[in-house]
Protein backbone atom coordinates (compact mmCIF):
# COMPACT_ATOMS: atom_id res chain seq x y z
CA UNK A 1 0.00 0.00 0.00
CA UNK A 2 0.99 3.60 -0.45
CA UNK A 3 1.94 5.71 2.57
CA UNK A 4 4.05 8.81 3.19
CA UNK A 5 7.24 8.33 5.21
CA UNK A 6 9.13 11.47 6.23
CA UNK A 7 7.39 13.42 3.49
CA UNK A 8 8.10 10.88 0.72
CA UNK A 9 5.44 8.68 -0.83
CA UNK A 10 6.42 5.01 -0.62
CA UNK A 11 4.95 1.67 -1.58
CA UNK A 12 5.21 -0.66 1.41
CA UNK A 13 4.09 -4.14 2.41
CA UNK A 14 4.36 -3.73 6.20
CA UNK A 15 1.19 -3.62 8.23
CA UNK A 16 2.63 -2.14 11.42
CA UNK A 17 5.24 0.48 12.34
CA UNK A 18 7.50 -2.20 13.80
CA UNK A 19 7.48 -4.06 10.51
CA UNK A 20 7.92 -0.84 8.53
CA UNK A 21 11.13 0.04 10.39
CA UNK A 22 12.48 -3.38 9.44
CA UNK A 23 11.30 -3.08 5.86
CA UNK A 24 13.02 0.28 5.43
CA UNK A 25 16.25 -0.95 7.08
CA UNK A 26 16.16 1.28 10.13
CA UNK A 27 18.82 -0.15 12.43
CA UNK A 28 19.10 2.42 15.19
CA UNK A 29 17.26 2.13 18.46
CA UNK A 30 16.39 5.68 19.35
CA UNK A 31 13.30 6.73 17.40
CA UNK A 32 10.05 8.50 17.98
CA UNK A 33 7.18 8.01 15.57
CA UNK A 34 4.36 10.31 14.61
CA UNK A 35 1.43 8.75 12.80
CA UNK A 36 -0.81 11.32 11.12
CA UNK A 37 0.49 14.12 13.36
CA UNK A 38 -0.03 12.16 16.58
CA UNK A 39 2.74 10.58 18.60
CA UNK A 40 2.59 6.80 18.46
CA UNK A 41 4.21 5.53 21.68
CA UNK A 42 6.77 2.78 21.26
CA UNK A 43 4.52 0.38 23.18
CA UNK A 44 1.99 0.61 20.33
CA UNK A 45 4.32 0.19 17.35
CA UNK A 46 3.61 -3.51 17.01
CA UNK A 47 -0.14 -3.46 17.50
CA UNK A 48 -1.17 -0.35 15.52
CA UNK A 49 -2.19 -1.23 11.95
CA UNK A 50 -0.97 0.98 9.11
CA UNK A 51 -3.45 2.11 6.51
CA UNK A 52 -3.09 3.41 2.96
CA UNK A 53 -2.54 7.16 2.98
CA UNK A 54 -0.99 7.24 6.46
CA UNK A 55 1.63 9.89 7.10
CA UNK A 56 4.51 8.55 9.18
CA UNK A 57 7.35 10.60 10.59
CA UNK A 58 10.42 8.76 11.87
CA UNK A 59 12.32 11.08 14.18
CA UNK A 60 15.67 10.88 15.99
CA UNK A 61 17.76 13.21 18.20
CA UNK A 62 19.82 15.82 16.42
CA UNK A 63 22.01 18.83 17.12
CA UNK A 64 20.03 21.89 18.22
CA UNK A 65 20.38 25.39 19.62
Amino acid at each position, binding site marked *: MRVTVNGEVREIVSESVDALLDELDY*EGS*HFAIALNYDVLPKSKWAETPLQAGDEIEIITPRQGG
Partner: protein
Amino acid sequence: MLNFYGKTFTSRLLIGSALYPSPSIMQGAIRASGAGIVTVSLRREAAGGKTGDAFWSLIRELDVTVLPNTAGCRSVREAVTTAKLARELFGTSWIKLEVIADNDTLQPDVVGLVEAAGILIKDGFEVFPYCTEDLSVAMRLVDAGCKVVMPWAAPIGSAKGIINRDALKLLRDRLPDITLVVDAGLGAPSHAAQALELGYDAVLLNTAIAKAADPVAMANAFRLGVEAGRTAYEAGLMEARDFASPSTPVVGTPFWHAVS
Protein backbone atom coordinates in the same frame (compact mmCIF):
# COMPACT_ATOMS: atom_id res chain seq x y z
CA MET B 1 20.94 28.53 42.79
CA LEU B 2 19.40 28.48 39.35
CA ASN B 3 16.01 26.77 39.41
CA PHE B 4 14.14 25.39 36.41
CA TYR B 5 10.80 23.86 37.36
CA GLY B 6 12.16 22.64 40.68
CA LYS B 7 15.46 21.34 39.31
CA THR B 8 18.56 23.24 40.43
CA PHE B 9 21.77 23.95 38.54
CA THR B 10 25.03 25.66 39.46
CA SER B 11 25.96 26.89 35.96
CA ARG B 12 23.96 29.81 34.58
CA LEU B 13 24.95 28.98 31.03
CA LEU B 14 22.77 26.79 28.80
CA ILE B 15 24.48 25.65 25.64
CA GLY B 16 23.38 24.41 22.23
CA SER B 17 24.76 21.32 20.52
CA ALA B 18 24.70 22.50 16.89
CA LEU B 19 27.16 23.96 14.34
CA TYR B 20 30.41 22.71 15.89
CA PRO B 21 33.26 21.78 13.53
CA SER B 22 33.31 18.19 14.86
CA PRO B 23 31.64 15.95 17.45
CA SER B 24 34.72 15.98 19.68
CA ILE B 25 34.90 19.79 19.61
CA MET B 26 31.21 19.85 20.52
CA GLN B 27 31.89 17.68 23.54
CA GLY B 28 34.96 19.72 24.49
CA ALA B 29 33.08 23.00 24.22
CA ILE B 30 30.13 21.75 26.26
CA ARG B 31 32.49 20.51 28.98
CA ALA B 32 34.50 23.76 28.97
CA SER B 33 31.32 25.84 29.22
CA GLY B 34 30.42 24.17 32.51
CA ALA B 35 26.78 24.08 31.33
CA GLY B 36 24.47 21.60 33.00
CA ILE B 37 21.78 21.90 30.33
CA VAL B 38 22.24 21.23 26.61
CA THR B 39 19.67 21.93 23.91
CA VAL B 40 18.95 19.31 21.26
CA SER B 41 16.49 18.97 18.41
CA LEU B 42 14.52 16.30 16.56
CA ARG B 43 14.84 15.58 12.90
CA ARG B 44 13.73 13.00 10.38
CA GLU B 45 15.98 9.95 10.13
CA ALA B 46 16.70 8.69 6.64
CA ALA B 47 16.06 4.99 5.99
CA GLY B 48 19.09 2.99 7.11
CA GLY B 49 20.51 6.04 8.88
CA LYS B 50 22.04 6.00 12.34
CA THR B 51 22.80 9.71 12.67
CA GLY B 52 20.43 10.09 15.59
CA ASP B 53 21.87 7.17 17.54
CA ALA B 54 25.44 8.41 17.02
CA PHE B 55 24.59 11.94 18.15
CA TRP B 56 22.59 10.73 21.13
CA SER B 57 25.45 8.61 22.45
CA LEU B 58 27.75 11.68 22.30
CA ILE B 59 25.29 13.66 24.41
CA ARG B 60 24.78 10.86 26.90
CA GLU B 61 28.52 10.68 27.52
CA LEU B 62 28.38 14.27 28.80
CA ASP B 63 26.03 13.54 31.71
CA VAL B 64 23.96 16.70 31.19
CA THR B 65 20.26 17.53 31.32
CA VAL B 66 18.81 17.79 27.82
CA LEU B 67 16.39 20.49 26.76
CA PRO B 68 14.77 19.52 23.45
CA ASN B 69 13.59 22.31 21.17
CA THR B 70 10.89 22.72 18.55
CA ALA B 71 13.22 24.64 16.22
CA GLY B 72 11.87 25.14 12.73
CA CYS B 73 8.22 24.78 13.68
CA ARG B 74 6.02 27.37 12.02
CA SER B 75 2.61 26.50 13.38
CA VAL B 76 1.04 25.66 16.72
CA ARG B 77 0.19 22.18 15.44
CA GLU B 78 3.76 21.43 14.35
CA ALA B 79 5.19 22.75 17.61
CA VAL B 80 2.79 20.78 19.80
CA THR B 81 3.38 17.53 17.92
CA THR B 82 7.15 18.07 17.94
CA ALA B 83 7.05 18.67 21.70
CA LYS B 84 5.17 15.42 22.19
CA LEU B 85 7.69 13.58 20.01
CA ALA B 86 10.47 15.09 22.13
CA ARG B 87 8.81 13.85 25.31
CA GLU B 88 8.60 10.37 23.84
CA LEU B 89 12.16 10.42 22.49
CA PHE B 90 14.01 12.03 25.39
CA GLY B 91 11.80 11.04 28.29
CA THR B 92 11.49 14.62 29.54
CA SER B 93 8.56 16.99 29.96
CA TRP B 94 10.89 19.96 29.35
CA ILE B 95 10.52 21.69 26.01
CA LYS B 96 12.18 24.78 24.57
CA LEU B 97 9.18 26.03 22.64
CA GLU B 98 9.87 27.84 19.39
CA VAL B 99 7.18 28.90 16.95
CA ILE B 100 8.81 30.88 14.18
CA ALA B 101 7.02 33.68 12.34
CA ASP B 102 9.56 34.92 9.82
CA ASN B 103 12.33 33.24 7.83
CA ASP B 104 14.73 36.18 7.72
CA THR B 105 14.66 37.23 11.35
CA LEU B 106 13.55 33.92 12.90
CA GLN B 107 11.30 36.14 14.96
CA PRO B 108 9.06 34.18 17.33
CA ASP B 109 5.38 34.01 16.39
CA VAL B 110 4.30 35.28 19.79
CA VAL B 111 0.60 34.67 19.17
CA GLY B 112 1.16 31.05 18.21
CA LEU B 113 3.69 30.71 21.02
CA VAL B 114 1.21 31.67 23.73
CA GLU B 115 -1.39 29.30 22.29
CA ALA B 116 1.06 26.39 22.01
CA ALA B 117 2.40 27.02 25.53
CA GLY B 118 -1.12 26.83 26.94
CA ILE B 119 -1.85 23.55 25.16
CA LEU B 120 1.42 21.96 26.26
CA ILE B 121 1.20 23.09 29.89
CA LYS B 122 -2.29 21.59 30.16
CA ASP B 123 -0.75 18.38 28.85
CA GLY B 124 1.87 18.35 31.63
CA PHE B 125 4.83 19.96 29.83
CA GLU B 126 7.29 22.32 31.49
CA VAL B 127 7.73 24.99 28.87
CA PHE B 128 10.78 27.18 28.13
CA PRO B 129 9.30 29.63 25.60
CA TYR B 130 11.60 31.44 23.16
CA CYS B 131 9.99 34.87 22.84
CA THR B 132 10.62 38.51 22.08
CA GLU B 133 11.38 41.05 24.81
CA ASP B 134 7.78 42.30 24.79
CA LEU B 135 6.37 42.53 28.32
CA SER B 136 2.78 41.81 27.30
CA VAL B 137 3.84 38.57 25.60
CA ALA B 138 5.88 37.52 28.62
CA MET B 139 2.90 38.19 30.88
CA ARG B 140 0.63 36.06 28.67
CA LEU B 141 3.17 33.24 28.83
CA VAL B 142 3.26 33.49 32.62
CA ASP B 143 -0.55 33.53 32.70
CA ALA B 144 -0.51 30.33 30.62
CA GLY B 145 1.64 28.71 33.31
CA CYS B 146 5.24 29.24 32.17
CA LYS B 147 7.67 29.50 35.10
CA VAL B 148 10.49 30.26 32.69
CA VAL B 149 10.55 32.96 29.99
CA MET B 150 13.33 33.24 27.41
CA PRO B 151 13.41 36.53 25.48
CA TRP B 152 15.86 37.04 22.63
CA ALA B 153 18.70 39.55 22.86
CA ALA B 154 18.83 39.79 19.06
CA PRO B 155 17.96 37.47 16.16
CA ILE B 156 19.27 33.89 16.43
CA GLY B 157 22.87 33.60 15.28
CA SER B 158 23.27 37.36 14.72
CA ALA B 159 25.88 37.91 17.48
CA LYS B 160 24.59 41.45 17.99
CA GLY B 161 24.17 41.23 21.73
CA ILE B 162 21.44 42.95 23.70
CA ILE B 163 19.61 45.33 21.34
CA ASN B 164 16.80 46.43 23.64
CA ARG B 165 18.29 46.67 27.10
CA ASP B 166 15.51 48.76 28.60
CA ALA B 167 12.84 46.24 27.62
CA LEU B 168 14.84 43.33 29.05
CA LYS B 169 15.34 45.29 32.26
CA LEU B 170 11.61 45.97 32.44
CA LEU B 171 10.90 42.24 32.13
CA ARG B 172 13.25 41.55 35.03
CA ASP B 173 11.66 44.25 37.18
CA ARG B 174 8.09 43.15 36.42
CA LEU B 175 8.58 39.38 36.62
CA PRO B 176 10.72 38.98 39.75
CA ASP B 177 9.54 35.42 40.44
CA ILE B 178 9.99 34.06 36.93
CA THR B 179 13.22 32.40 35.83
CA LEU B 180 14.40 34.64 32.98
CA VAL B 181 16.89 33.47 30.37
CA VAL B 182 18.32 35.56 27.56
CA ASP B 183 18.13 33.23 24.58
CA ALA B 184 19.63 33.98 21.17
CA GLY B 185 21.65 36.77 19.62
CA LEU B 186 24.60 36.90 22.01
CA GLY B 187 27.98 37.20 20.33
CA ALA B 188 30.57 37.82 23.03
CA PRO B 189 31.14 36.91 26.67
CA SER B 190 30.60 40.59 27.53
CA HIS B 191 27.06 40.29 26.13
CA ALA B 192 26.42 37.34 28.42
CA ALA B 193 27.86 39.30 31.35
CA GLN B 194 25.48 42.19 30.57
CA ALA B 195 22.48 39.85 30.69
CA LEU B 196 23.52 38.49 34.08
CA GLU B 197 24.28 42.01 35.36
CA LEU B 198 20.66 42.93 34.51
CA GLY B 199 19.57 40.19 36.89
CA TYR B 200 18.76 37.57 34.29
CA ASP B 201 18.99 34.11 35.77
CA ALA B 202 20.86 32.56 32.86
CA VAL B 203 21.76 32.78 29.18
CA LEU B 204 21.32 30.24 26.41
CA LEU B 205 23.66 30.36 23.44
CA ASN B 206 25.08 28.23 20.69
CA THR B 207 26.42 29.98 17.59
CA ALA B 208 28.80 32.37 19.37
CA ILE B 209 30.66 29.39 20.81
CA ALA B 210 30.30 26.90 17.96
CA LYS B 211 31.39 29.38 15.28
CA ALA B 212 34.34 30.82 17.18
CA ALA B 213 37.81 30.07 15.79
CA ASP B 214 38.40 27.98 18.91
CA PRO B 215 35.03 26.85 20.29
CA VAL B 216 36.47 25.16 23.37
CA ALA B 217 38.37 28.30 24.43
CA MET B 218 35.32 30.46 23.67
CA ALA B 219 33.12 28.19 25.78
CA ASN B 220 35.48 28.81 28.67
CA ALA B 221 35.38 32.57 28.00
CA PHE B 222 31.57 32.52 28.11
CA ARG B 223 31.67 30.53 31.35
CA LEU B 224 33.82 33.28 32.86
CA GLY B 225 31.62 36.04 31.41
CA VAL B 226 28.52 34.50 32.93
CA GLU B 227 30.24 34.11 36.30
CA ALA B 228 31.48 37.70 36.20
CA GLY B 229 28.03 39.04 35.32
CA ARG B 230 26.27 37.08 38.03
CA THR B 231 28.87 37.98 40.66
CA ALA B 232 28.52 41.65 39.71
CA TYR B 233 24.72 41.46 39.96
CA GLU B 234 24.96 39.93 43.42
CA ALA B 235 27.54 42.52 44.46
CA GLY B 236 25.15 45.34 43.50
CA LEU B 237 26.14 47.61 40.63
CA MET B 238 26.22 51.34 41.19
CA GLU B 239 23.83 53.54 39.22
CA ALA B 240 25.14 55.38 36.17
CA ARG B 241 25.21 59.18 36.39
CA ASP B 242 25.68 62.07 34.01
CA PHE B 243 28.57 63.93 35.57
CA ALA B 244 32.04 63.14 36.87
CA SER B 245 32.62 62.48 40.52
CA PRO B 246 36.26 62.39 41.64
CA SER B 247 37.44 59.11 43.05
CA THR B 248 40.59 60.60 44.61
CA PRO B 249 39.86 62.67 47.77
CA VAL B 250 39.70 66.41 47.12
CA VAL B 251 40.53 67.55 50.64
CA GLY B 252 44.29 67.86 51.11
CA THR B 253 45.10 68.23 47.44
CA PRO B 254 48.51 70.04 47.25
CA PHE B 255 48.19 73.75 46.40
CA TRP B 256 44.41 73.37 46.92
CA HIS B 257 42.41 76.31 48.12
CA ALA B 258 38.69 76.91 48.21
CA VAL B 259 37.30 79.06 45.46
CA SER B 260 34.24 81.17 46.13
